[in-house]
């Protein structure tokens, strides 16, 4: 498939076209608010014909070609073969037609671009000027009758927009918003047809009656519906790949800022893991059908917005109101056209477009507030002190004795006093002062729940959207304007103008136009923008990139976690205390430093990031019916520009040192409070990304009797420019895709797909990959022999197999380049000084040169081989629906480190395409919908299961199978098998030797199983425990109940077989670094001899100053929590006011009010403070969390 043709490159001309299109687009935008409705085309369109001795049909064809007129006639009524001469210059069409039909018995009627030709027995003899006459005649002699009626579905809901036609004619109408219709029909009309997308077309033989109340039956769900697939759409019923989609309505039910969170629970086989609940940083990581690759940076699906590759960051900034639907492509058949990018699945977002009709104005608004779903439960000072004393005693380490709390101190914590009555009594102060002091809350010995103090409140959220859509015959438009804002949850953020709360604000606009330029030329243009601003505190540079989640979340949490509950008093009397006056605090040596978490937060530098994303695309479709019927070509140009700039600021705030007056301890003295200058760094980060995309496609679609064929051949090219790219080389992608489908009688379906593309990240000569896929389907219920019954109304099987690639292989770009050297190196080891200084000054420093990257000239993409089999069965007139899919994927060529290379090589040898992973699973979707009386209800439940298995990753030969990662799922946790606790000295002495922590084991420590039976507890005893962080099962269930205008919709989600580790730093380790906080689950769950004696099972080992990196801290199944949960994710209660009189007078077509709750209630065994949807990333398992939020929201939706 490799081509080496020396052609003049057309890149430049592509660019020129592109710039012209941009200008065009601009003008289109300027004229955007106008709706075009061209009237009088027939008068204005001037035609010229010069035809001699040609047939009538030839003339009609010539008119069609020159203009946009389309003729409708029945062959037997018009003498098409009659030869005539016709010479016309610049005349309207009626003059041509008059000339054409002069002397014949045909009359015609012009209805804008449609011209109907027929016979009028009564009129043919007299009419010479037909059109007006016909109407006159009709008015004078009513030969028609008026029909009226109403169309509903089987549940009695009216169906607006039903097409009602007299069969065999073009006479017809469309039902209105209430499903009602009225129109005139000829007296001889015999059969009425009612058709509506998704409903079975109904034919009614007319008798004398003129009023029809018709109830349309739903087709098999989705029949007639179009599904967005790669580079096109397909009829849902004939799709052979595995595709799922979700519409605008469901997405809007979730009051969340971004689409990835709105998708949660809406699509079977889609897993979402959230990293935080912080505004602007709360997007979920989405995986489709789990994970099939070892490399953690290449697990994301491809995102396509309106046909063009995009990114999750842009997807997440789209206003849900702008979205028509989101399609998720899962199997090879659906994704092969994306070739080297498709292996992780594809998410296609399609935005709304206008439909012909009068302008529809939609306004929606909602507002609400957020709060945490779950909070860490911290231990108060009194329990903390007792717990710590217990720990020091158990540890039996004299060096820790300085940290013991005295009984007096414990009394003070318990009573929130700084002095015991005895101490007060012995003071040389007045009795009044003594009384004050006795009653005064503690300054030093307080007890704070800093987590609650920091995160305990609520924060507002609001969203507005206004969109207008409509269009005339030639131009259709959709324009939307949106606003979203969400505030952060930090309390006291306003202190001293610190203003460090996180926030997210976004403006959206989108305008989509479809212009029928001529009959066979259509231009679709779209322009959209997302303007988001978000702000949040910055992390510490000691923890890596200060703008990244890890360091930021650490900065939010670390002060809460690394100090005891009395570390500092926080804000007293409106003054932020950030320390005690020079060592006056009696608890100084016990970590009562005086600085408090709120101070840490308020004093952090703050970054405001403005993210502007503009997108323009133009698509030109030219139908080539004149060459071959069903053939069209489409060219697409798209341009995306993202501009990110951020402002770094430090806002100094007044902070105070505090102490009790040594002469009168009842008086609290504050010192400090001066405020320095604020500092602002504009353009702290400032970069532009842009992306160009070009596509040229040929589509073919035609039916030959029972044979339906479609074909697609497409080339595309894409280039992304980003200053952060390695070597600043833009990232290009070029390729082609094609698809052919065949359907016989909608019974037998077959499809062939292929993608062929490549990028510069792979070595020349092997840049391009070819990815084919095949699929087939059989709609058994369409077989003539299939028994028609109400029990099984639809039965389809489908299967697919193919290959797809993944070019996000991890590591740097251009891995194929030869080995390179770099200057510098790690820290102090990166160079050396030579010279003869005696210490007075430094010698010259010579920067080092080191071998940096060793190249791999054979680097290539990952390859996925995917198979999918699906069943679709509907029962009981489609009330019960079932879709089942089983899939299997084999991924190979995964770029992975050679794990068996000894370190004595002294260099990191390049990664190679050696990894292999398989992924298997199934998806089941069950739906039931019915009504009880006037209550309509539906339940849809999905289950998805995906389990991967590492087949190969070049691991050393371990002595035991369980030590390998190979053969287990990705991210499978491994740890020691905890088997209760040692309850007595005897038990602790009579045990296997422990290689961990120098064999220090005592009662209250965790008992581990010596798995391999060698008498030693060591790393050889680490076995698979729990699962991986990514759950294998995910379920969701949607419940909808409608009664009149009321609607209740609820979404439950859940996962199973997932694990969350709490094995590190603060979550596991009370008193970390001798000073850290302790949590309630540790204290109340801990082992004590009393519990042991009473036979109570502890959930935490004995108190110790060093749970971390000790026997007890070694990862074991006690530190791995099941993240299984069921959550009432979303509930929406709404009421729709239908076209009532009052509203009508106000000009409102529809009004809907609703309230929504998100993340409402969760059933989980996970400890407080951790959210089961939370991902173990960004330091979450260390306790560095901005927890998930719950949202309550109220809204209104008005349609004008």
């Amino acid at each position, binding site marked *: 498939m490799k*081509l080496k043709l020396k*052609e003049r*490159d*057309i*890149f430049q001309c*592509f660019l020129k076209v592109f710039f012209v299109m941009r200008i065009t687009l601009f003008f289109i935008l300027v004229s955007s608010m106008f709706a075009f409705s061209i009237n009088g085309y027939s008068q204005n369109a001037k035609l010229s014909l010069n035809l001699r001795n040609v047939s009538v049909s030839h003339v009609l064809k010539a008119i069609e070609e020159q203009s946009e007129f389309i003729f409708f006639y029945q062959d037997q009524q018009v003498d098409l073969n009659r030869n005539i001469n016709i010479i016309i210059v610049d005349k309207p069409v009626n003059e041509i037609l008059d000339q054409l039909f002069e002397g014949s018995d045909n009359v015609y009627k012009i209805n804008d671009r449609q011209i109907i030709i027929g016979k009028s027995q009564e009129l043919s003899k007299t009419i010479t000027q037909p059109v007006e006459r016909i109407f006159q005649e009709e008015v004078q002699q009513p030969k028609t009758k008026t029909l009226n009626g109403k169309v509903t579905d089987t549940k009695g809901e009216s169906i607006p927009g039903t097409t009602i036609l007299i069969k065999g004619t073009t006479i017809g109408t469309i039902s209105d918003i209430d499903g009602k219709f009225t129109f005139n029909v000829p007296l001889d009309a015999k059969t009425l047809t009612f058709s509506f997308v998704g409903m079975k077309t109904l034919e009614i033989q007319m008798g004398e009656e003129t009023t029809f109340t018709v109830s349309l039956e739903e087709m098999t769900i989705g029949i007639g519906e179009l599904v967005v697939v790669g580079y096109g759409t397909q009829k849902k019923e004939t799709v052979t790949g595995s595709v799922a989609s979700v519409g605008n309505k469901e997405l809007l039910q979730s009051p969340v800022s971004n689409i990835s969170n709105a998708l949660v629970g809406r699509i079977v086989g889609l897993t979402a893991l959230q990293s935080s609940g912080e505004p602007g940083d709360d997007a979920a990581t989405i995986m489709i059908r789990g994970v099939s690759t070892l490399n953690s940076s290449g697990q994301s699906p491809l995102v396509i917005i309106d046909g063009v590759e995009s990114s999750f960051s842009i997807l997440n900034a789209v206003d849900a109101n702008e979205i028509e639907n989101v399609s998720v492509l899962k199997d090879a058949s659906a994704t092969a056209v994306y070739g080297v990018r498709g292996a992780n699945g594809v998410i296609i977002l399609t935005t709304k477009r206008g439909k012909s009709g009068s302008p529809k104005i939609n306004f929606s608004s909602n507002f609400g507030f957020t709060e945490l779903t779950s909070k860490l439960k911290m231990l108060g000072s009194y329990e903390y002190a007792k717990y710590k004393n217990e720990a020091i005693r158990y540890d039996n380490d*004299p*060096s820790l004795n*300085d940290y013991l709390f005295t009984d007096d101190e414990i009394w003070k914590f318990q009573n929130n006093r700084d002095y015991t009555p005895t101490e007060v009594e012995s003071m040389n102060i007045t009795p009044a002062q003594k009384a004050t002091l006795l009653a005064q809350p503690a300054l030093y010995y307080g007890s704070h729940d800093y987590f609650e103090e920091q995160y305990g409140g609520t924060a507002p959220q609001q969203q507005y959207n206004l969109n207008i859509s409509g269009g005339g015959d030639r131009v259709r438009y959709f324009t939307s304007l949106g606003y979203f804002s969400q505030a952060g949850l930090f309390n006291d953020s306003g202190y001293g103008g610190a203003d460090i709360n996180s926030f997210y604000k976004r403006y959206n606009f989108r305008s989509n136009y479809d212009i029928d330029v001529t009959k066979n030329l259509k231009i679709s243009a779209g322009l959209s923008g997302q303007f988001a601003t978000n702000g949040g505190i910055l992390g510490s540079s000691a923890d890596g990139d200060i703008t990244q989640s890890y360091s930021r979340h650490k900065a939010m949490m670390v002060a809460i976690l690394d100090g005891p509950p009395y570390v500092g008093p926080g804000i007293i009397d409106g003054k932020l205390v950030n320390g005690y006056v020079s060592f006056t605090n009696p608890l100084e040596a016990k970590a009562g430093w005086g600085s408090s978490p709120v101070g840490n937060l308020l004093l952090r530098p703050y970054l405001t990031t403005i993210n502007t994303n503009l997108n323009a695309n133009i698509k030109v479709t030219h139908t080539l019916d004149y060459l*071959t019927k069903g*053939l069209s070509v489409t060219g697409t140009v798209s341009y995306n520009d993202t501009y990110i700039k951020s402002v770094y600021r430090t806002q100094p705030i007044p902070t105070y040192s505090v102490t009790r007056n040594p002469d009168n301890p009842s008086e609290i003295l504050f010192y400090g409070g001066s405020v320095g200058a604020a500092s602002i760094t504009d353009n702290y980060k400032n970069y532009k990304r842009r992306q160009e995309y070009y596509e*040229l496609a040929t589509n*073919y679609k035609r039916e030959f009797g029972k044979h339906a064929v479609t074909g697609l051949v497409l*080339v595309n090219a894409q280039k992304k420019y980003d200053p952060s790219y390695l070597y600043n*080389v*833009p990232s290009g992608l070029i*390729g082609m895709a*094609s698809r052919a489908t065949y359907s016989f009688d909608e019974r037998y379906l077959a499809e062939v797909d292929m993608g062929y593309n490549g990028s510069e990240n792979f070595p020349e000569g092997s840049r391009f990959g070819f990815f084919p896929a095949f699929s087939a389907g059989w709609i058994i219920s369409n077989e003539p022999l299939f028994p028609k019954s109400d029990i099984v109304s639809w039965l389809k099987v489908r299967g697919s197999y193919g290959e797809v690639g993944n070019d996000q292989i991890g590591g740097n770009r*251009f891995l194929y*380049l030869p080995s*390179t050297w*770099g200057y510098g*190196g790690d820290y*102090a*080891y*990166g*160079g*050396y*000084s*030579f*010279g003869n200084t*005696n*210490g007075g000054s*430094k010698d010259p*420093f010579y920067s*080092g*040169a*080191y*071998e940096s990257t060793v190249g791999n000239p054979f680097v290539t993409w990952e390859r996925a081989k995917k198979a999918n089999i699906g069943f679709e069965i509907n029962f009981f007139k489609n009330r019960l629906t079932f879709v089942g899919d089983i899939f299997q994927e084999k991924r190979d060529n995964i770029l992975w480190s050679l794990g*068996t*290379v*000894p*370190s*004595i090589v*002294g*260099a990191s040898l390049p990664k190679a395409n050696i990894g292999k992973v398989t992924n298997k699973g199934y998806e089941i979707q069950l739906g039931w919908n019915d009504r009880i009386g006037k209550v309509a209800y539906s339940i849809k439940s999905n289950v998805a299961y995906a389990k991967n298995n590492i087949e190969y990753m070049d691991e*050393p030969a371990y002595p035991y199978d369980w030590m390998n990662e190979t053969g287990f799922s990705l991210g499978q946790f491994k740890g020691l098998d905890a088997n209760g606790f040692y309850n007595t000295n005897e038990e602790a002495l009579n045990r296997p030797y422990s*290689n*961990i*922590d*120098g*064999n220090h084991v005592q009662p209250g420590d965790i008992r581990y199983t010596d798995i391999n039976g060698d008498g030693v507890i*060591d*790393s050889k005893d680490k076995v698979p425990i729990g699962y991986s962080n990514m759950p294998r099962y995910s379920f969701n269930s949607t419940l909808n109940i409608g009664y009149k205008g009321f609607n209740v919709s609820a979404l439950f989600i859940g996962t199973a077989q997932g694990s969350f580790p709490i094995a590190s730093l603060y979550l596991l380790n009370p008193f970390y670094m*001798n000073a850290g906080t302790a949590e309630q689950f540790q204290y109340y769950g801990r082992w004590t001899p009393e519990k042991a004696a009473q036979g109570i099972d502890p959930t935490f080992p004995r108190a110790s*100053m060093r749970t*971390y*990196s000790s026997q007890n*801290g070694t*990862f074991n199944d006690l530190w791995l929590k099941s993240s299984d949960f069921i959550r009432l994710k979303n509930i929406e209660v709404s009421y729709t006011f239908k076209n009532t009189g009052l509203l009508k007078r106000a000009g409102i077509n529809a009004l809907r009010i609703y309230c929504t709750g998100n993340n409402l209630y969760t059933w989980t065994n996970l400890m407080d403070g951790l959210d089961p949807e939370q991902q173990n990333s960004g330091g979450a398992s260390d306790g560095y969390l901005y927890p998930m939020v719950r949202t309550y929201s109220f809204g209104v939706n008005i349609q004008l």
Partner: protein
Amino acid sequence: MKTERISQNLAITLILMIVMSACQKDFLEKPQGSDTTVDSIFSTSLKAQSAIALAYSQSLAVGITLSGWDGNRDYGLCGGTLANISGEVNDLKYNWGDSWKIQHSGMTADDGSGKPLSDDGFNFNFKSIRQNNLVIENIDKVVDMSAVEKEQVKAEMKTLIAYRYEEMFKRYGGVPLVKKSLNTKDSIKIPRASLEQTLDFILTLCDEAALVLPDTYPEKWKGRVTKGVALAIKAEALMYAARPLFNSATPYMDLGANNNLICFGNADPARWQKALDANTAVLDWTHANNYRIITTGSPLDDYGTAVATPGNVEVLLAYKSQSAFGGYYDQRSEGGGSNGMSFYQMSQYLKADGTEQTWPTEITPYADYATRIQEMEPRYKASAGAAGIDAWNNPNDTEWNSTAMSNRSTWEGRGGTEACGRRVKFWYHAGTRDWFEFPLYRVAEFYLNLAEAYNELGQPAMTQTNLNVIRNRAGLPNITESNQANLRKMIQREWAVEFYEENHQYFDVKHWKLADIGNGIIGGPKLSFIFTYINGNFGLVATDYISYITQTVYTGFWKSNQYLTPFPQQEINKGYLIQNPGY
């Protein structure tokens, strides 16, 4: 009609494909050829100098804690120095640091997270050796360097390899011998060489290098390895070969058929003779090249200068990384300031008059401490800052007075950081300077080597001569002891005092197989001075102190497997290494 359509489709397909291939060149760009490759580094001597600088920086870093926090343990011990695990410094605080964990729980091949917890960054040894080999293999490509210079660079690199192997030799015993930069094509699973082979490899490298290396360098290039350094590495390697841990018929723990990896298999006094010869050669060379023991008659200043002043005449080789040290050697930071000298180390020092000092085991007034501590010999005063007393080695410097030292060791409050002496050794007259050059080979070492070798060979007179060179410089009187066993103890004590914190004690006590290694030196009860303060204050100045006492502050860990360092479990799993016994 049908064929027409097919041909149309084909034509369109073809056009599209042509367009695609035409765009390919423009679209799929490649980075411009500006990459630094091995050939560009080794093109000019100036650029090659960078590779050489890195070779020095990496090769000589062993055992020196430079990083503030080396979380991956790339370079070795994280959060502490070798002195913290050798018995010289008590590791009381920082219970999350490696040195604390090793002091309390010993070394392991796998600390639970898959990384070893040990005194060495095993993998980094070979990273630095690879750098040396790359320089050796590529230096000939440099165009503007004479053949003589190139040979000299190669000899320098060999010396650095020998240094690194000598460091591994004393830690691990026999290790894999990597003689070139390895590629995947090579047989890369090189097993451990025997102890003998490893020693021979080091000696061969030193001998080869010594033939080529210069005796001195121009001022600009001071700090590079001289012939004397090659001789010194050889001398040190032979000392460890002669000491009882390796020079024995049976190893410290049985490794069965692989005992030759950790033991020579016989106790041969001839090894002491070789060591003696090699050390004599070093001293001969130093005499000829103006390196000497600094003796100006002011012992505190002489010793202070010798161990701390960059570029002094006593130091043959120092680690010349002049970036700020991570703080673990610096009393002025919490890392170095929160833990102080152990009582074991304290008790190695004599009084300035050469007699023993005694310390109370009962609570005793601070005044007693102030008196006794002032009686200590100059090397104590040059190495430690005492409680409530300004540092002797930085007199009249507010940066180093008692208050400043106390305030800077504030981690977790300030109590107990004085121990038996704050850590000030490498900062003689340093003022505000925040870096020093860690001395790797100091002339004093070879006198003590000779004393030890002569004593083991039963020559007390020569033993005394060499030992007294060191004692005299410290202002201590000559010794006249001639009993071999007594002399051995005195030599060992002299090592402990003279080379406090200089990365000797950790290996010495193991290779001497001291009886008390598990009972007070590395393992067992760890003692320290504990002070009490007026009004619960901390000791900023002498008047803050009430009393002191010597008592156990924690229990150190010792087990026989700790004689040698574990190889990382990850490497053992790859199947080419045999683990040292007991891990």
